[in-house]
């Protein structure tokens, strides 16, 4: 400890740098400085109001419940851990970090990553912060070398190691976010004994310590008990101060002075000088929340969290109803219920078309199931529109939700008109597959903010809705072509299958209308944003490719160059064109549409294309052989 005291006294900037590098290692030490009155879980606490407290995270004001859920899922892959809800886990991490640090939390499944870090294999593959930090600190050189490698060249194991490295750093930010309000174990005790109570005495204490060092040197054995206590106190205060310098994650204080929309964390208020009498009230309430948790006082906790949530509900930019709705949205998870209903609907539809004698109420039940799924699906989108205040097509994930809903509604429309189970099959297949695919693109926060270039509700409502509706009808046309090909292979009535394909033809025409219109609108938007209508960008080329493919096959059909079998196969392959244009171009990581870039789902996309090509080739061959035999 004497070394640290010396550096504090002589060279604070140097110490600052050392601490920044070794923050995670230091954090375990820092926690020893604080008095944690309670060691038990605060299970009897009411977290309702705490969950409603707004926080600005990644540019969006969201409820604390969402912030907790995002981080717990990011670290552990689960929304609850050891029977503790996400919000209770967050409260514990913020107000009793020492206990959270020893809990198995970080999920590390990759055996290579475990071996690289020298971590023991565990049944649930979860490691505590203490374990993970020790492993990371032992392998500092490995981490440094991995950070030099481009992301695309990292192996899955290396990627998992870096992910753990990032997650532990993020966790460290959360644990330090409320150290400003935690009780410090410093002698002599002052006021509530938080950092602020001691802060203004630091210059005086530092002067005294420097005088002691000048007189007695750095050997603690030569110090009197009072001098040792002073040295220890300065050590604790200085480390707490420096470890909090970059602590900006918990943005719970609205901006107090004009100039920025960014909210501030309690430590940022302290360091940046952005405080005001209004922020003082909020800081006081945060202090009460922290104290009531530490003292395990459920009644005070409820009172303090209610007061804080109520005070914050009046802050500029905060919409209390939207916050409550968002909490309900994540608690109730209507999308997964909707997906379950589509899967059930698909199974029932298969029963309906199996040719078995079934009662008519089974079909009605199937329609009811799909309608219920569509209702929940639509409710999800409506909720998201209300919360985000924009059309629901800002990200790849959102466009998948939107496209799947339109496909389901169109399927139900087809069923209403044709009453031959085709619509049900289209609706349930499109609904369940697209919602399942959307899970790969959900990211940490499914309600992420739009990047600046997309931040215009007009273009989102016209170009993006138009082009995604075009993709949608294209996919439905492709699914209809699949159904036609399967039925042909199974030797079903040619008139019936021809009628199905006619439906596909009509749907392809609608798809062409929307994709063409959407592409032109996109060009106009590009002209406004980037000052050119067309730039042969991968995304633009993808949209054009869909239009050209549709024009080609529709003209081929009209001019009779394509016969039934060829047209059906070409229409089925439209799904591949759409998948590549919609999702595939984002894998290229080039062009101006950088907001959609992703490195996820490359393998799934390759497998999907391979499966589609195989399906097209096999059905083309089988139908040809059947036709030849006839």
């Amino acid at each position, binding site marked *: 400890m004497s070394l640290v005291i010396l550096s504090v006294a002589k060279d604070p900037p140097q110490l600052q740098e050392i601490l920044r590098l070794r923050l995670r290692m230091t954090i375990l030490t820092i926690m020893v400085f604080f008095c944690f009155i309670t060691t038990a879980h605060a299970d009897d606490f009411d977290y309702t109001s705490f969950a409603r407290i707004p926080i600005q995270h990644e540019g969006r004001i969201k409820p604390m419940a969402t912030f907790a859920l995002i981080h717990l899922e990011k670290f552990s892959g689960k929304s609850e851990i050891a029977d503790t809800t996400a919000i209770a886990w967050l409260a514990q991490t913020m107000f009793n970090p020492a206990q959270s640090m020893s809990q198995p939390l970080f999920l590390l499944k990759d055996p290579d990553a475990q071996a690289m870090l020298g971590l023991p294999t565990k049944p649930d593959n979860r490691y505590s912060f203490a374990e993970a930090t020790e492993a990371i600190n032992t392998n500092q050189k490995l981490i440094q070398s991995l950070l030099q490698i481009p992301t695309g060249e990292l192996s899955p194991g290396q990627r998992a190691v870096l992910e753990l490295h990032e997650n532990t750093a993020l966790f460290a930010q959360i644990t330090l976010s409320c150290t400003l309000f935690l009780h410090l174990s410093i002698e002599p005790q002052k006021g509530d004994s938080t950092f602020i109570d001691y802060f*203004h005495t630091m210059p005086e204490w530092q002067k005294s310590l420097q005088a002691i060092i000048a007189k007695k040197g750095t050997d603690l054995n030569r110090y009197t008990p009072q001098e040792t206590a002073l040295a220890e106190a300065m050590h604790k205060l200085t480390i707490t101060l420096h470890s909090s310098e970059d602590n900006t994650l918990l943005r719970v204080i609205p901006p107090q002075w004009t100039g920025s929309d960014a909210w501030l964390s309690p430590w940022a208020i302290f360091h940046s000088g952005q*405080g005001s*009498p209004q922020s003082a009230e909020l800081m006081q309430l945060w202090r009460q929340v922290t104290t009531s948790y530490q003292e395990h006082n459920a009644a005070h906790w409820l009172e303090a969290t209610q007061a804080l949530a109520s005070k914050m509900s009046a802050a500029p930019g905060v919409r209390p109803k939207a916050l409550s709705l968002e909490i309900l949205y994540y608690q109730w998870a209507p999308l997964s219920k909707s997906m379950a209903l589509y899967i059930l609907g698909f199974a029932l539809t298969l029963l309906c078309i199996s040719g078995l004698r079934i009662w008519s109420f089974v079909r009605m039940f199937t329609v009811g199931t799909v309608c219920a799924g569509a209702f929940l699906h639509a409710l999800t989108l409506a909720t998201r529109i209300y919360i985000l205040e924009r059309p629901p097509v800002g990200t790849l994930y959102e466009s998948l939700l939107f496209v799947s809903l339109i496909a389901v509604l169109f399927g139900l429309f087809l069923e209403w008109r044709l009453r031959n189970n085709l619509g049900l099959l289209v609706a349930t297949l499109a609904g369940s597959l697209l919602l399942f695919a959307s899970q790969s693109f959900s990211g940490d926060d499914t309600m992420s903010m739009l990047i600046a270039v997309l931040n215009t509700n007009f273009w989102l409502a016209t170009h993006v809705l138009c082009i995604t509706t075009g993709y949608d009808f294209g996919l439905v046309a492709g699914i209809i072509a699949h159904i036609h090909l399967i039925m042909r292979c199974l030797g079903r009535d040619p008139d019936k299958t021809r009628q199905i394909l006619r439906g596909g033809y009509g749907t392809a025409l609608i798809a062409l209308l929307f994709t063409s219109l959407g592409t032109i*609108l996109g060009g106009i938007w590009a002209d406004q944003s980037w000052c050119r209508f067309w730039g042969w960008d991968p995304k633009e080329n993808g949209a054009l490719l869909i239009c050209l493919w549709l024009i080609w096959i529709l003209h081929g059909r009209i001019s009779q160059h394509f016969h039934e079998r060829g047209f059906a196969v070409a229409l089925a392959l439209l799904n591949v064109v759409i998948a590549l244009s919609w999702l595939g171009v984002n894998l290229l990581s080039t062009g101006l549409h950088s907001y959609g870039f992703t490195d996820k789902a490359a393998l799934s996309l390759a497998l999907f294309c391979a499966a589609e090509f195989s399906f097209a080739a096999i059905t083309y061959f089988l139908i040809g052989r059947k036709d030849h035999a006839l």
Partner: protein
Amino acid sequence: MRYKLLIVAAILALTFGFMLYDRTSITTDIEPTHTQQNPPAPDVTFNLLNGGTIALHSLAGHTILLHFWASWCIPCREEFASLLTHLQKTNDDTILLAVSADAKAQDATRFLAPYKRDFKPLFDSGKVILAHDPHHTLIEGTFQTFNYPETIIIAPDFTLSRKIIGPMQESLKE
């Protein structure tokens, strides 16, 4: 055929209508949507350095420079003279309420002694008021000032209009 043409015409009209709306809304988007009102200053009472108290509210109607400083703070020491010179030059109704964060009142008094002599008319005019908050109850607890110097400008309508973090020489030039 006529219906189809009508549908196409309707779609085109809708699109261009929206585009026109968007073009006009671009200009309104960049203007502030609402003017946030300045929050009121708190009604607190400071202890004066030479004894007695002063309620902040009693200075309402003047522009108040609520200046937090300490004698051990080097930038505060450096800027104090220029702050007083500026006040002396200006003939407006600005009042400097300088709140010392020193633990001991003597430290602040010792530092201020030469200034009181050099700027006697200014101190006598009541445009400079010296307060002291040794326990930082108001400095930290109410005004959330943890680093020095910091200055809050309170408008004549007794609202908080601006905060200057660090020395305010540059702001004085403005």
